[in-house]
Every structure is written in C-alpha cells, then in structure tokens.
C-alpha cells in the first residue's frame, strides 16, 4: 500500500498521472479536522492512496469526475457527510434527502447528535428531465415490488424503450460512518459486517485487515485460511442465490427452485461446520471467532462436491433452454471500452472485459498460495454475467475443497498490540461483488477516529444506468439482478 501526499497545487497533475496509467478508482472519502480528501486507486498492479490535506478554512477541492466518472457520487456523498466539497458541476445532495438540514454535517467534529424533527417531508430531488414527443416517466421505488432493498429508479421512456434511467439512492442510509467514530477499534468488525449483509465476510475481513495493518498484528496461519474459507463460502451462497433469481427473472421458475434448494443445502452445511448460516462476526480482529472440527469440514467439502455436480447439470439446462437464452443474450450489454471508461469493477467488470480480481492480481494470504483461476467474458450482457457467476461458483467450490484439504493446524487468534493514535490502515478484499475497501484511522483511547467502508456498488451503480439504455422496461429487473448491486453497502 503506497500513500502519496499532495497539495492543492499538484493534486490535479498527480491524478492525471495516475489516470494515465489506466488506474482504477477504488474509493474516495473525505474527513474534517483537518479537512482532507483521500482517493484510493489500483494503479500498476498495486494499491495507491492519494491524500490531499486542505489548508485551514479551505473546504473545497478540484473534483475527479473528468478523469474518473465514478467519483461523482462519492464526492457528493462526501460533501453531505463532512462538508468538504468538490468543485465539479453536479452538486446535488446524494445521501442527504430531507431528514436532516443541509447545514448539518454528521462527520464534522463536535457535531451534535441530531435527533430529527418529526416525519421527514417528501424530498424534491432535481431529476434530469427528458423531453420530446411521447416521452414519459415511470417512477419506481423506494419500496420495490419484490423482496429488495430500497432505492428509486426514474425511467424516461418512449413506448417500452428506455431512453434514460436515473437512480436516486441513499434511502438505506444508517449513519454508519458517524457510528464508527463512536465504536472501539476492537469492536468495529461487527459494524463492518453489517454494512452490507450479503458481504459480511468481505467487509469484516477488510476491516480486520486494516486494523491488523495499523496495529502490526500477525494473524495465525490457520485463521487466515479459515477467513478464505468464509469468503469463498459467502461467494458460493450469493452466486447460488443469484443464479436462481436470474432464471426466475427470465421466466424459468425451475431455476429458482433448484438453485434456492442448493443454496439452502450449502447454508445448512455451513451451519453444521461452523454453527452459522451467514458468517457475520466469524472474522474478528487478530483471527477468527471459532474453530471448525475436521470431520465437519470434511462434510462441508463433500457438500461442495455434490453442489458442484448439481450446478454443472443446471448450467447445461440453462445453456440449452431457448427461452432463457433469448432473455439473457444481448440484454443490458456494457461493451468493454465503455466499462473501462466508466470504471466498472468486480464481477460485472469481469463480464465486460475488465479482467481484475484481487485474489489473483493483488493476493493477500492465503490466495497467493491458492492461485484461484480468474473468470472473464467480453460480451458484457446478462448472459456474460451469468457465465462469470457459473465459472466463479465452480472455482469457489473447488477452493473450499482445497482449503479444507490444506488447512494448517495452529492458533485461531492473536492478541492485538497497542494501537497508536492517528495510525492509518487500509483493508482490501475481493468480495463476491468486487473489491471491498476499508480505510481506518485510529483515534484516542482505543476508539475509531475515522472509518470509511467502501462497496464496489459505488462504481457500478452509474454503469447500470448505461446498461439499460435502449432496452425495454420489462427487461430491467433481469438486468438489475444480473448486476445485483448493494443498496445498504452504498447508502451507509
């Protein structure tokens, strides 16, 4: 992890240099006292954080959105939370709707515990209007028609064809970053695990990695391997769920029945092995919370084999089903050059020619020894995102069996050394959706000063607006599901 300190004078030229290397924006966050901007990149195969500390009284900085379009919403969110604002064109609020006043900055030092003022009034957000003969709007959400997280989609359409989609997010904003600053360093992993429930392992691992980095804590080998087991288990559960839901959204209920059955079998195997269906709070600072008995792990490994065989049969059924192919192929396509320009990342990126997987390209232990195979497609449509999921499911099931085979004996947990106030750490883990980053700064008395958890959905939500253009409205649920982005992980 390299950090590069800049000043207002060389901030833009530094960013231009970073952009010229073809770097990917991983995250952007700001803080107060002193006011500062931080941007994390994947640059030349390594992680790089560019820091900009602003002069006293200075609260604005030149934005990144010309170089990295994905930065726009991150900058708007950061302005809502700290008041440190980019000078880019789009200054509409993002996470702040109408529940708290514009002047209230939850991450400003010594800001009060604002308790709200009655039921928040309706929020009049300035959507971009599309006009023309026959153009009309369909507003959807924040309460959606299925069992889905809250968000608002504004479609501008002609007939059934989508001309433009504009997303309005932030409905699930829970004040996580302010809460972090009231959390002890050795308890923050619990909050991290609840940033996005489907990525609990990825976030708690990234948090612990950041903490262990700044505390210089050596995690025992067995714990590291068990963490990888948990991360792959999470990927398997999510991919099984998505593959079923995608079949269902294409009108093939058989797919949902079968994959939801396999997912339940997998969760029960996990429950039997480590006494948890979803592994939130399994990863703790210094190691893991529980051991797993060898005979139970052997059964988990057997379950991985059975599920792998069944998934292979289901894959051939999906492949041969004309109706399913008709819906999958060509829907919601994002071409590789557009994906590169917009900074599409993670699973959806790999389906659009962006061959980046931290487990392969920037591996932490034990992935350097496991050598997972990277999956990729160039078509960028729903079918490609389904194929990448099938490939990764197969590979993760294989990895689980390999991890169980090679799991070293030893301690599960190491004592966390004393942490120095002001120490900074970064955690970076390839979750099932893509790279999950946690930036952590230690405060006084064992508390967190600043923690920014970052889900790859930040980068990918804006790309969904492009993926839907020219498609028909009824294909939106399918296209949306094929990305399956996080609302909670983004809204924080």
């Amino acid at each position, binding site marked *: 992890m390299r950090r590069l300190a800049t000043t207002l004078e060389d901030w833009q030229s530094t960013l231009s240099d970073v952009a010229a290397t073809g770097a990917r924006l991983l995250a952007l966050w700001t803080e107060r006292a002193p006011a500062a901007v931080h941007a994390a990149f994947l640059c030349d195969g390594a992680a790089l954080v560019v820091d900009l500390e602003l002069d006293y009284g200075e609260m604005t900085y030149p934005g990144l959105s010309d170089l990295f379009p994905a930065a726009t919403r991150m900058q708007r969110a950061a302005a809502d939370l700290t008041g440190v604002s980019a000078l880019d064109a789009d200054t509409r609020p993002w996470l702040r709707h109408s529940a708290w006043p514009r002047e209230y900055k939850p991450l400003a030092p010594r800001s009060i515990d604002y308790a709200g003022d009655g039921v928040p009034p309706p929020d009049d957000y300035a959507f971009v209007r599309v006009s023309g003969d026959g153009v009309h709007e369909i507003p959807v959400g*924040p309460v959606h028609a299925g069992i889905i997280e809250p968000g608002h989609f504004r479609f501008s359409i002609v007939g059934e064809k989508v001309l433009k989609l504009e997303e309005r997010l932030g409905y699930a904003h829970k004040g996580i970053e302010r809460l972090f600053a009231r959390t002890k360093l050795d308890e923050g992993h619990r909050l991290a695990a609840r940033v*996005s*429930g489907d990525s609990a392992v990825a976030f708690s691992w990234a948090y612990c990695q950041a903490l262990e980095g700044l505390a210089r804590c050596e995690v025992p080998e067995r714990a590291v391997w068990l963490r990888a087991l948990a991360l792959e288990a999470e990927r398997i559960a999510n991919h099984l769920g998505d593959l079923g839901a995608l079949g269902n959204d294409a009108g093939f209920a058989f797919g949902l029945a079968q994959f*939801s059955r396999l997912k339940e079998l997998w969760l029960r195997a996990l429950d039997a092995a480590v006494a948890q269906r*979803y592994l*939130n709070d399994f990863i703790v600072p210094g190691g893991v919370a529980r051991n797993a008995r060898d005979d139970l792990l052997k059964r988990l490994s057997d379950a991985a084999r059975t599920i792998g065989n069944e998934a292979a049969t289901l894959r051939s059924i999906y492949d041969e089903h004309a109706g399913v192919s008709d819906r999958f192929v060509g829907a919601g396509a994002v071409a590789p050059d557009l994906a590169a320009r917009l900074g599409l990342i993670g699973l959806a990126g790999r389906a659009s020619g962006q061959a980046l997987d931290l487990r392969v390209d920037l591996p932490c232990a034990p992935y350097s020894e496991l050598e997972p195979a990277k999956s990729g497609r160039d078509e960028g449509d729903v079918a490609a995102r389904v194929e990448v999921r099938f490939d990764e499911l197969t590979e993760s099931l294989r990895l689980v069996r390999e991890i169980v085979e090679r799991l070293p004996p030893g301690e599960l947990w190491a004592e966390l050394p004393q942490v120095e106030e002001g120490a900074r750490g970064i955690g970076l883990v390839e979750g099932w959706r893509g790279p999950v980053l946690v930036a952590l700064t230690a405060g006084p008395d064992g508390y967190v000063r600043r923690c920014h958890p970052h889900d790859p959905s930040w980068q990918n939500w804006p790309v969904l607006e492009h993926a839907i253009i020219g498609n028909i409205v009824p294909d939106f649920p399918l296209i949306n599901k094929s990305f399956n982005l996080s609302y909670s992980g983004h809204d924080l």
Partner: protein
Amino acid sequence: MWKTLGKIGSIGVISEPAPEPDDALRVAEHLQDEIRVLLGRALCIRQVDAGSCNGCELEIHALGNPFYNLEGYGIKFVASPRHADLLLVTGPVARNMELALRRTYDATPDPKLVVAIGDCGCTGGIFGESYATAGRVANVIPVDVAVPGCPPHPSRILAGILTAIRATRSG
C-alpha cells in the same frame, strides 16, 4: 426438457413441516381472533426493507425455497401494499425511509398485521437511533409480532408470520 423433468422427478417433495407459532414473539394485539383466522387461509405479504443491511432479506428469500415452501401454506409475497394483509418489515427504519414506510402502511387495507424482522427491526440493533435512523419499526408504525435474530433463521421468520395470523391461545 427431459433433463429438467428428470431433475424435478429425482428430487421429489422435500418440504419440511411448519414450525409451531410462538406467542413469545407477539408484542401487541391489534386484530380480533376471527379476522386472524380468516387471513390465515390465504395471506398476502408485502415485504418492506426500511433500511436493513440486506441480511434479513436473504433469510426471507429462503422462505420461498422448497424446504420452507411458504406458498404451500397459502402465503405469498405480493408487489403492492394495496394487495397485502401483512407487512413484513426489516431494518432499523432509516429516516430517509420513514415517510415511505408510513405511506406503505397507510396504503395497506385494514385489517392488517405488521411483523418486524431482525434485531434491528425489534430494537434498532447495532444502529440504534441517530440523525439517520428512527430505530425499531414500532417507533414508526404499530407492530404485532417481532422476530429477533441477526439474521433470524427462516424457520423463526415463518414462526413469526404464523404467530401473527393465529388466534391467541388465551383468546
């Protein structure tokens, strides 16, 4: 086609018996027993994520899998509160969702039931109350049954739904 049919045939029926309703999950009485019994025959649920981390949603989804087979009891999820008898609400209620949750409740025809799901729905959980969250679901709309857990097991969620629609033992 033969592969699909073969798969269906080889697995057969794997649905498990329903859990017992649990009066310990009941927090309030808003409906008469006769109405509950009628609703229980064909219950329509509108799920509302009022700001959860999405963990509870994963286990609510599991209710539809062949093991828990929710639809086998005549219970189904519907796309509009206007079609619903019961709201299944997760999350600490994010203040950005407070108005939407109230409107969803108002749009649900009487008589109606509300089941709050998860530690956050029951108490506000790890998020509590702040500038951004209004805390537990009962702070915003009346709740009949609350199911704790992080996330609760699908069989507990099912027990909570069945508790809500069953007449109280004491009558």
